[in-house]
């Protein structure tokens, strides 16, 4: 298989992966490498237009196997290649949706103002609201002006304080 191959360097606990850049372009390799940064040390070399070399080196006290790591890297490459291909295919639709969302904001506002029947809101304001607990009474209406309100609040506080004792 010439597309991807890897050489194991057991002595140095490293593996070099050779990648055909016509199949997996450089940005795919970057993305796959980024995922592996926490698992191993990575160095890139080679030629981005021909063959990309990725060296994976195990971290100290790592329990991972190099061969498994290399094959997981291949999987990650394929994952990102597929993602980027789908992203490229969906780009026109995504851009259209984005443009529609960004540029139709003012039209949406006008449309809403024209279409809303404000008389329904007036009807709602005229309706009497049921208030069996008597909650919907304004503070001033219940206790009078602000000085009286302060006195009432202080007396109620003292009363509750004594009750607590």
């Amino acid at each position, binding site marked *: 298989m010439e597309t991807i191959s890897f050489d194991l360097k057991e002595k140095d606990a490293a593996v070099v992966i050779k990648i055909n850049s016509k199949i997996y372009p*450089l*940005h795919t390799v*970057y993305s796959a*490498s*980024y995922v592996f*940064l926490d698992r191993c*040390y990575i160095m*890139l*070399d080679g030629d981005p237009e021909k063959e990309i070399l990725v060296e994976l080196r195990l*971290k100290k006290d790592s329990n991972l196997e190099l061969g498994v790591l290399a094959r997981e890297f291949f999987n990650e490459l394929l994952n990102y290649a597929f993602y980027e291909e789908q992203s490229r295919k969906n780009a026109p639709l995504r851009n259209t949706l984005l443009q529609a969302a960004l540029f139709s904001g003012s039209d949406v506002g006008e449309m809403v103002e024209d279409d809303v029947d404000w008389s329904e809101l007036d009807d709602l304001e005229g309706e009497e609201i049921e208030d069996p607990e008597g909650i919907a009474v304004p503070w001033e209406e219940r206790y009078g002006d602000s000085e009286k309100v302060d006195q009432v609040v202080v007396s109620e506080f003292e009363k509750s304080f004594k009750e607590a004792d």
Partner: protein
Amino acid sequence: MDSFFSYSVLKINFNKKFYDLFSIEDALKVFGEFFSSKVNVGETCFVVELNFLDKEGDIVVVKEFCNYVLGLVHDNRHGRAQI
């Protein structure tokens, strides 16, 4: 004054086609407490010279530095541009 200290120098070659100078310099600032450094621009590589006060130098720090550079390259190319 420098003769008072004994440095160990380590060189890393970053392939120009994969790594950019901004990422290397940003990473060097982050790792500045571990080593002093100098970057030479070669034909195909950025040659980074790391000077450790400790003779041995900590190779783990150097490897983490390389990973950090790669992470920054990825961020510069993809992460910040991708919405």
